[in-house]
């Protein structure tokens, strides 16, 4: 068998399959072993990527934003800092507080990692390099993501700690609420591609990335997914300055490490999903012929989105819970529903009028965004009028 350098993944798979079959193993068993190997590579890849490289990159970026140097002691440019951190975490005492629900307390960090890694099963890294191209991929992403919410709630409620409990309360309000606009926004690429399979959605973007066809939905997904992952400015569930560390305040050692990795992975996952669903995934010039190039494109897009998330995280203060919910229920959710309807109508309208699909969609989105801004502006005017009346009344009472 020739080794095809243009498509190494398939070739490696074929090579291994041939090898194993040659050893006289049953074909079913061979498939299972290959799957296991693939999963191992995928999980290992995801965990090392998030756990080591991105942690380091994130910290370096944060340092640069904040006028600092960042980690620079362990290895060149401090790149092995996360490894040193991991070793430290491993040698830390594992404390389970008094009165905690021990089983749930132990299970929660593992569930968190499981859900964060699980999503990667349906993310296409490159052509034909995908765990499995489920026909209900989008639904799967939502479902597995919800397990992460569950794990945070479990951790918070099982800790027998009031800060953790407050964190769990906030999780309920925040993560549950933001799932709505996120899922509704996911309807848009589904509709545009005509499939729920993630691989199919990427393929459907050959004609044009969905960020062009559905910018509003892209933004909605990005924002609500950030809230869903609890990234700043939506990090209420672990708000350090208020409830210290929220749900993970009682976790120590590697259990904390698991939550930490899961949180990072979740951030990367959002980036990867945004890149896949709206930025064309692995698509790019020459990616079809050279899947490795596809992987590079995918990594670049993911890293870009992730860095945007980090940039926002290090430049925004935290938003308060009532604003958080009002933002979700009163803006994101109606807007997401409107985006779905607008997309559906535009999708029907374009062939009927015989116009270019992208133009119709883009126009519809711009109209929608404009209407939203107008509505917001009117609302803000109302508020400002109320606020501006106040100081005059105060002034007469106070100044001498």
């Amino acid at each position, binding site marked *: 068998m020739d080794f095809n350098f243009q498509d190494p993944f398939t070739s490696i798979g074929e090579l291994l399959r041939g090898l194993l079959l040659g050893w006289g193993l049953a074909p079913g068993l061979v498939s299972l072993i290959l799957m296991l190997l693939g999963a191992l590579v995928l999980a290992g890849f995801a965990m090392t990527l998030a756990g080591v490289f991105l942690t380091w990159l994130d910290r370096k970026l944060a340092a640069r934003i904040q006028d600092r140097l960042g980690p620079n002691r362990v290895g060149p440019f401090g790149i092995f800092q996360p490894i040193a951190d991991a070793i430290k975490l491993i040698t830390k005492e594992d404390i389970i507080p008094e009165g905690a629900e021990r089983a749930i307390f132990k299970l929660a960090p593992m569930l968190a990692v499981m859900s964060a890694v699980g999503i990667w099963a349906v993310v296409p890294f490159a052509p034909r390099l995908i765990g499995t191209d489920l026909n209900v991929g989008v639904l799967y992403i939502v479902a597995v993501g919800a397990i992460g919410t569950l794990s945070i709630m479990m951790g918070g409620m099982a800790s027998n700690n009031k800060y953790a409990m407050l964190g769990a309360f906030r999780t309920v309000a925040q993560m549950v609420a933001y799932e709505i606009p996120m899922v509704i926004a996911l309807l848009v690429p589904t509709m545009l591609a005509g499939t729920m399979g993630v691989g199919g959605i990427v393929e459907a973007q050959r004609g044009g990335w969905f960020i062009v066809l559905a910018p509003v939905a892209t933004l909605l997904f990005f924002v609500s997914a950030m809230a869903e992952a609890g990234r700043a400015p939506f990090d209420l569930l672990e708000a350090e300055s208020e409830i210290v560390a929220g749900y993970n305040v009682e976790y120590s050692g590697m259990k904390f490490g698991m939550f930490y990795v899961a949180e990072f992975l979740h951030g990367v996952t959002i980036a990867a999903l945004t890149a896949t669903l709206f930025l064309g995934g692995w698509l790019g010039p020459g990616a079809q012929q050279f899947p490795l190039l596809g992987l590079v494109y995918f990594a670049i897009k993911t890293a870009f989105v992730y860095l945007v998330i980090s940039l926002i995280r290090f430049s925004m203060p935290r938003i308060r819970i009532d604003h958080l919910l009002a933002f979700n229920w009163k803006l994101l959710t109606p807007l997401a529903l409107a985006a779905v309807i607008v997309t559906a109508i535009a999708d029907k309208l374009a062939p009927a009028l015989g116009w270019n699909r992208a133009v119709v969609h883009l126009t519809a989105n711009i109209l929608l965004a404009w209407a939203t801004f107008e509505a917001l502006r009117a609302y803000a005017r109302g508020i400002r009028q109320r606020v501006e009346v106040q100081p005059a009344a*105060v002034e007469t009472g*106070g100044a001498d």
Partner: protein
Amino acid sequence: MSEQEQSTVAEPLEVHFPQAVTPDERKGYQGYVVATEALPEVATYARDELGYDYLSSVTGVDYLPEGKTEVVYHAYRTAGGPALVLKVQVPREDPVVPSLVGIYPSADFQEREAWDLLGIRFSGHPNLKRILMWEGFHGHPLRKDYQEVYFEAENKPFKNRWPEGKVYRVEEKAPLKKNVQYPPDFTAEGWVPEGDAALYAGMGQVVAAEGGNGRALNTDQIVVNLGPQHPSTHGVFRLVVTLEGETIVDLEPVMGYLHRNHEKIGERNTFLMNMPYTDRLDYICAMGNNFGYSLAVEKLMGITPPERAEYIRVMMAELTRIVNHLWAIGFLLNDLGAYFTPALYAIEERELVLDVFEAVSGSRMMCNYFRFGGVARDLPEGVLDVVRELVHERLPRKVDELDTYLTHNEIIRARCVGVGVLPPEDAIAYGMAGPVLRASGVPYDVRRADPYSIYDRLDFDVAVRYNGDVYDRYIIRLDEIRQSLRILEQVLRDIPEGEVQTGKPQYQVRVPAGEAYGRVENPKGELGFYVVSNGKPNPWRYHVRAPSFINLTAMGEMCKGQKVADVVAILGSIDIVLGEVDR
């Protein structure tokens, strides 16, 4: 300086209360001695008729030889002008004074402090319990017959609390091991501080320790401690809050974790030895603290520093204000959850100013630079150029930068506007000082209201904002930095050559008997030093009116009904430093 003005004010008070009010005629003393039972009446009159609406300082002095305890009140008009000093003299065996909390809510914490440290009971105080020492502490340390436990007392510490006890662990290794004694059944884990049980019990009657409040359809209220070990309490400060969901139902500040009885130390030190201790009060603004203490003692000594020293003092005080406000803004943003970015931007500028402090005093934070009648040494060569560069080039640019990045940020506005509102009348009543008071629309600044040093010659505006919320408290700090820069420009322009110290530098200053209250507009508010001398090398009484401490009086009022997230924002906007709160 203020004798004449006071006498014009005084007539009505004396005329109105011919029996109850007599001028204080001791040499070096001012104000009026008020009969104990007439105090509320006199205070009400002074507030309503004479316009002394701002009770700045309440403290006590233990006159052991005379066998009496004196409570001293300093009240001011927010319109400006000198103090009205009221005194109440009670026998020191059982000092009971009517509480003024009903008339001046700002007396709340200060009366508790006087009870705690001097054992003066204020009848009618709603919550008279210890504030700086812990509940269960034996004695009142500022009383002159109090013997300090390790060094003076017959009964060693804790013996009076746990008689017949046993020595345990850490103390075993300590040289004074026999001094600590615990009862036989004592365990560190099982010990509940006496004060806490009472505190929790007071935090909303509906809360039962088992959870649930008896009303099946209502949600649980929970009592949560924010602090002492909490990232946004700015030190070891504790807020006990009762929460319903995310909303604050009740809040009680608990302090004293950093208490070192600064005032007792002050009474043991000589006047000059005290100077470096004032650095440790509000350790962000050491220069400002030095300033206040110098003013008080100079008033007693009757000296004024030479011209150049005055300019240097004002320069240092205004640089300190910039440092403090940068710090305050940075950490307010941190409390709002901005991940240190604004704080680090602000601290970078602070470091540059600290370089100046290091150059002039040899220390970046604990400056110890002021002396009675001047400053420790003249400015080294080149410092003025550095300050000029800072004031004219770097700082204005950086303040504008902070302004651009923060002021119109949508999240900051949403988090700050309308949060923790304190109306002007409340701000005055609670004795708020500094930016917090001025953000509520009260243009009261000691630099203008009762000018000291050379501030009457300088051209600057008192920054005022009118909404009294967290946002205004943030933005007023930017305003004040700009005003400070304006002052610094004039100081740099006009600073004369000459001596920096009146007379020879001396280690032992002669301070005539008497009392003096020196106050400065420190960055955090009015910092007052009340010093009583009896002619000895060390002060008989040394009291600090700490702005951070008194500004916390309104904390509970501002937080009720707000969210958990708002509490840290409000606390950040008050801008406390625990070194000063706990003293």
